[in-house]
């Protein structure tokens, strides 16, 4: 190995030092800018968000065609939906008198309101599709096999939760589309043997889609189901690490 002779720091080096090696930066990130293997591992290990990952992964798993990023993108949609959803909550009141007018109001009077609503809608569709495709990729790569059995089960639960999240959100605009789609949907649920009519009543808070249904769907949509989904996602991600990362041939 050739011996490097130290050169004088260039202007670039000085700016770099000033940006990344100062007291404030280090108080936040501990490591410097992750440009050495040591710092790159440290940043993943010490940052709470990056720490969802291991510091190193098998090289076949960074190939895009292995996962197509589908699980990660499902999660990304979940995050995006949370952000746009919170913004919509500022303006939306789940009462039969106001819901529809609030949506109109969001679209016409709120800065970027239409944009937020559109984003929330299309992301929700995207999430349903992405989660389904993610399930297909996991199946066709045989990644449910031991020791990942239980994580597949957690996945099936997440699939159901994703459908339910989307379904409960569908009612909230309180327009004809929402009202009748939920009427049809809950009629399907209500036809179940033994528990059907009861569960339909429980879901709607009555016999018909009305004010009680709206507040129930709203509560489930903005807190109940997201909370459950977040818990199961936490388990899902934790299990991926515990099961030794993503599946690869033995």
């Amino acid at each position: 190995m050739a011996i490097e002779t130290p050169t004088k720091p260039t202007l670039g080096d000085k700016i770099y030092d000033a940006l990344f090696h100062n007291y404030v930066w280090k108080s936040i990130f501990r490591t410097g800018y992750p440009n050495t293997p040591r710092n790159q591992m440290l940043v993943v290990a010490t940052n709470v968000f990056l720490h969802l990952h291991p510091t190193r992964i098998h090289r076949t798993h960074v190939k895009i065609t292995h996962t197509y990023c589908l699980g990660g993108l499902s999660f990304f949609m979940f995050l995006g939906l949370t952000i746009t959803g919170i913004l919509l909550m500022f303006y939306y009141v789940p009462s039969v008198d106001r819901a529809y007018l609030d949506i109109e109001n969001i679209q016409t009077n709120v800065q970027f309101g239409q944009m937020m609503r559109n984003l929330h809608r299309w992301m929700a569709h995207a999430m349903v599709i992405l989660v389904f495709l993610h399930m297909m990729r996991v199946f066709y790569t045989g990644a449910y096999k031991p020791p990942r059995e239980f994580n597949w089960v957690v996945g099936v639960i997440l699939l159901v939760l994703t459908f339910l999240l989307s379904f409960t959100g569908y009612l909230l605009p309180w327009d004809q589309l929402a009202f009748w789609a939920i009427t049809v949907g809950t009629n399907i649920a209500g036809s179940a043997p033994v528990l059907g009519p009861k569960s339909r009543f429980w879901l709607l808070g009555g016999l018909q889609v009305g004010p009680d249904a709206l507040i129930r769907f709203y509560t489930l949509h903005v807190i109940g189901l997201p909370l459950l989904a977040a818990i199961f996602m936490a388990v899902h991600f934790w299990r991926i690490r515990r099961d030794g990362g993503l599946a690869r041939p033995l």
Partner: protein
Amino acid sequence: MATAVVARPVARPQARARDEEVLVWPDLVFIEFIAAMLFTITLFFLATVMNAPLLDQANADVTPNPSKAPWYLLNLQELLLHMNAAMAGVIIPSIWLGIMAAFPYFDRENDGQGVWFGTERAVKITIISGLVGIIGTWFLILWDSGKIAFFLNDWFGLSGGDNLRFLENVRSMQTQLPWPEWASDITYLPFNLKLLASDAPGGPTEFQNLDFPGWLVEQGIPIMAIVGLPSLMIYAMWKAGWVLTRRDALLALFSGFIGAYGILTLVGTAFRGQGQELVFPWELKVSEGIPGQE
């Protein structure tokens, strides 16, 4: 008596192969970042050019025709047209979710794990059973909506005459066969067990008096089709020497499901017009079609 504890092999996390590993930062984080950016840009673009639908305010007195569930439930709504509501809407999807959740407990071998289509014959099985799911489901839907009989008659001048009318679709087996009187009122349980909701559209709902032709059409034939046809497919593939392992069987089952599910969703979304009549997408008034395209 003491029971012996038999040691069973327990799946453990795989040992890591350090020399095969790359650093998450930058290799993975970079990819994640790009993927997230691509999606952000695409979605922002979509949100600029296409508005989320908003129709008139909800009105319980004005029922749109057709009324459709959200698109990802239209597969169930489509099934609903062909059989007992509880079966199509709740029982079949619940059982299927249970079956899917049980996949890893049925197929416990590690062969083919961690690579796309990692076992021999996997691609072949997937394609064939996917096609069977797609074509078979299409065929069944066409048949049950009476289109097959219609085409045979209209295009080829073939008509079975009145004797074969019962083959026109599923329902005609109830209406076009000379069932004896008693067949539609069989007392077979001494108590009135209401298993399926009595206000569910059509079909026998109380077990005390069985309407056999009705039961056959609403539940019997659909169960036979949904359980029988996939079993038949897997059996045939086994006989043909394609399905040899549990993984193979699951590949066939899952791919068949994907095909059928896709077709059901597609037909429910784009091929069902007023009164849930089967029509071609271009015959569908735009306002009736895909929810949100008004």
